[in-house]
């Protein structure tokens, strides 16, 4: 065997600061990252033009419309913030919709029961607290199934979808449970300076969740686990504990969503979150997260939830048959994923060289 002298030159071939400063690429990446906000702007412009031509009235500048859209977006957004964490970690939580329903029923029952014993405002708080805590229980079970027993998130949470659904209907006795608490009703329908309380609560909640995802170790580890669970484990991150906390967190988001639903409709219903589960996943995906894990932001998800709310409300506003909503949301999801893939192919080209 002849040994060709190894070591030596070649060093010059290594581009020192490589080529990652390409402005065109980073612009495209930025557009792809912010695509949900672009969608949102585009939709608002569409509806504005449509509304002016069809009715001669403004769509965007009408505060009633904005309030309605914001209220519309609250419940899906609460589910979607929890879902954002789960999807970034590489998982999915299919049980959120019925955990929300379960929480709505619990909130109604607990508020009524507490209202018999303590002052109404305290009863309201007790009801909200009870619903969030009870919602944590299916979250703990999801987390244990996925982290300890290695059940795939899709299957584990699908099972919990059924369990929570059944439990919610049983607790509700198969009907909706009305809430007798004027404070709770005020919380769900009142406003301060034109901003509904519900929207205010959701906004505060979103900021807290944004902090948790972007500024804490928990959030950082969540991204790392979604990108490379092996690397995270080797770095000494407690994967099992993290996954457990993660699914409890997402379930509690749904729990708050259920409590706010009960406030808005002054009733708890087991099917409260049924149509919202897929909306929550859609909001996360439109918001720029990848279902493969590792990417996504809370503010992206906010934009995603608003896109869905604008489509749903806007199409009703311009008198289009409501079934078009499903088609429109579906198309936006697909376009969003296509943009994501194109961007990945574009910026990932150097990885698989």
């Amino acid at each position, binding site marked *: *065997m002849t*040994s*060709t002298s*190894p*070591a030596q030159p*070649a*060093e010059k*071939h*290594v581009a*020192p*600061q*490589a080529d*990652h*400063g390409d402005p065109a690429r980073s612009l495209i990446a930025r557009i792809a990252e912010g695509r949900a906000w672009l969608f949102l702007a585009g939709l608002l412009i569409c509806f504005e033009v449509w509304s002016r031509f069809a009715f001669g009235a403004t769509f965007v500048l009408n505060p009633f419309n904005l309030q309605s859209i914001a209220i519309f977006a609250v419940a899906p957004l609460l589910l979607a913030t929890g879902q954002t964490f789960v999807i970034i970690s590489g998982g999915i939580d299919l049980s959120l919709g019925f955990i929300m329903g379960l929480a709505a029923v619990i909130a109604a029952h607990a508020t009524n029961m507490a209202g018999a014993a303590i002052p109404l405002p305290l009863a309201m708080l007790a009801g909200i607290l009870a619903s969030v805590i009870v919602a944590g229980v299916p979250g703990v079970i999801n987390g244990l199934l996925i982290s300890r027993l290695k059940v795939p998130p899709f299957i584990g949470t699908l099972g919990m979808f059924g369990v929570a659904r059944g439990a919610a209907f049983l607790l509700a006795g198969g009907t909706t449970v009305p809430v007798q608490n004027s404070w709770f009703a005020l919380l769900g329908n009142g406003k301060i300076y034109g901003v509904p309380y519900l929207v205010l609560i959701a906004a505060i909640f979103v900021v807290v969740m944004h*902090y948790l995802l972007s*500024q*804490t*170790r928990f959030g*950082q*580890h969540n*991204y*790392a686990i*979604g*990108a*490379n669970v*092996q*690397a*995270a484990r*080797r*770095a*000494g*991150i407690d994967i099992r504990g993290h996954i457990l906390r993660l699914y409890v967190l997402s379930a509690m988001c749904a729990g708050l969503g259920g409590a706010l639903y009960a406030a808005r409709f002054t009733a708890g219903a087991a099917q409260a979150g049924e149509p919202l589960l897929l909306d929550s996943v859609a909001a996360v995906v439109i918001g720029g997260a990848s279902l493969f894990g*590792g*990417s996504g932001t809370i503010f992206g998800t906010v934009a995603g939830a608003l896109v869905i709310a604008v489509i749903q409300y806007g199409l009703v506003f311009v008198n289009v048959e409501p079934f078009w909503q499903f088609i429109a949301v579906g198309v936006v999801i697909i376009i969003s994923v296509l943009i994501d893939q194109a961007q990945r192919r574009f*910026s*990932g080209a*150097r*990885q698989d*060289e």
Partner: protein
Amino acid sequence: MNSTNQNGPLLEVRNLSKHFGAVRALNDFSMAVRPGEVVALAGDNGAGKTTLIKAISGVFQPTGGEILLRGQPVTFATPQEAREKGIETIYQDLALADNLSIGANIFLGREPMRKAFGFLPVLDRKAMATAAKETMRRLDFHVSRLEAPVSNFSGGQRQAVAIGRAVYWDAQILIMDEPTAALGVPEQRKVISLIHQLKAQGRGVIFISHNLQDIFAVSDRIVVLRRGIQAGERKISETNHDEVVKLMVGG
């Protein structure tokens, strides 16, 4: 560092065995790594290289024998314990989170925090970026975009990040499993020069590779494994490719 042991081996493995049932993956194996020394571990597939490094890095508990760190016997229940004692393993499949920055990867699992507005704990990204810049400079890698995710960097640069993490946390022994396998030729050269720097900094390196050229370019000694036993140990200056290949295949 223990001054009485300055010239002794950093790491010594004595009569180490690892049996999986009847399979003797590693049998009565001994080797040593001195400060500033690069020891290559060579052997065919299934020769026991991986078992050996997993035993040293705390992934497996050895069936018999002992591991000495600066002359002191040690046992590691987990890879974290080995890491805390200064033994860092750099895996060939790049144990990085591709979506995070260099700094975030260096600090993964032990992120520095600061207080925003005097009370709110937040990740100290500035400290991470500064440390990343500093560490990469020590390795002679100059990266401009410290906030970019490491997926933006080339394979060699990412390998440097993995090595940089070990250097930052002051690993004294670096176990590198096929660090050049996934790289193009110029990048391989860069990693080889990185290993030379680790050596110059007085760290011990265990270098596992199939590539004899790389082994001869960077190592001081070569230890050959064959079917779980030590088939031979040579100084690089006193051997050649042919002899090593013979040791590996048992000619």
